């Protein structure tokens, strides 16, 4: 019991590599669009201690510190004219720089399910697309999941599993935004 208690004090400290895979870079087709991305700096410190089961080993997932660089890299790949906002957005600011669309992302929930055979990680986010007047044109929720067996048996297994869950979430966001902007473009042309 004492041993188990001590082991539960420590556990797994899991940081993803924080890079997109080659598969992501190759599968996303960039569109010619100026777009700004904003997220609060608090996102980078988002940590989950969800151990995935009451008796599982403690696990600390450093979600935000990897998610931030990954979503910026995704926007670099998906949009020709990408701008990152490190200051609070305003309609005046968007107009000054000729930014027609602003995307704001925040993390909603991180979930971990550990079973005997493997682990399921999922990340849910909320994304809002604004026009240059800061009027909402789309608000959506995305979930990226990675379901892997025998993950803890490998060096880098939990880390890469986390990376994949984040990447799947980001893929979902990017595709959703591209679909919305293509639809907007078609509406404007017709």
């Amino acid at each position: 019991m004492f041993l188990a208690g001590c082991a539960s004090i420590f556990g797994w400290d899991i940081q993803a590599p924080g890079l997109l895979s080659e598969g992501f870079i190759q599968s996303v087709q960039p569109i010619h669009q100026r777009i700004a991305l904003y997220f609060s700096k608090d996102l980078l410190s988002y940590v989950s201690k969800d151990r995935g089961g009451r008796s599982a080993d403690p696990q600390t997932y450093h979600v935000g510190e990897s998610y931030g660089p990954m979503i910026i890299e995704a926007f670099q790949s998906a949009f020709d004219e990408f701008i990152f906002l490190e200051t609070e957005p305003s309609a005046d600011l968007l107009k000054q720089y000729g930014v027609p669309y602003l995307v704001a992302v925040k993390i909603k929930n991180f979930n971990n399910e550990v079973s005997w055979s493997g682990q399921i990680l999922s990340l849910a986010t909320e994304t809002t697309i604004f026009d240059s007047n800061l009027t909402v044109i789309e608000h959506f929720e995305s979930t990226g999941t990675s379901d892997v067996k025998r993950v803890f048996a490998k060096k880098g297994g939990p880390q890469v599993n986390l990376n994949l869950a984040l990447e799947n979430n980001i893929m979902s966001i990017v595709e959703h935004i591209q679909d919305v902007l293509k639809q907007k473009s078609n509406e404007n042309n017709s």
Partner: protein
Amino acid sequence: MKIILNLGLIFSISLIFGPVINASEVIPETDSQVIVRAHPKTGKPYVVIVAKDSIPEPFFPDSKKFSRPDYRLLDPKVKSGQIPYDGPYSDSKRIYIFAATVATLGTVGGAIGMAVIPASASGAATGGAGYLAAGGAVAASTVTAAVANTAPNPKNDDFVQTSESKSIYKENQKRL
């Protein structure tokens, strides 16, 4: 180099963004400036708008550079080490050794043990093996308990979903 990227590459805003603005439109100036930052992981530059009144601090903390992840590593048929991985990892052996040290020797003894182990490599290896066995027993018991908690969950079977995105609403309102 980072200082140069963060501070030196401040561009003329009007030259870059001017053509989008109509000549008759009056655009209020905001307290902002444009800089170029290097991506913290890839080094690829990107445009950033920051507050004007201060020297921009790094947005991301310094981080190590790793290779892109290869998800074949997650294939259950692939054994540990078959796919190269140079990213961060949690060394569970070291954690269990430390936990077992504390469990065996107590807080003070554990601190002494941790101080001694690095100074004596062979002693650390021998002791580590013993501690690891204890740690392994801990791991086995916790995994078994985890199964008891999660096995009835039907969501764990045939789980194939990887990503999903759904609209919550579309409406004309200002909010952030």
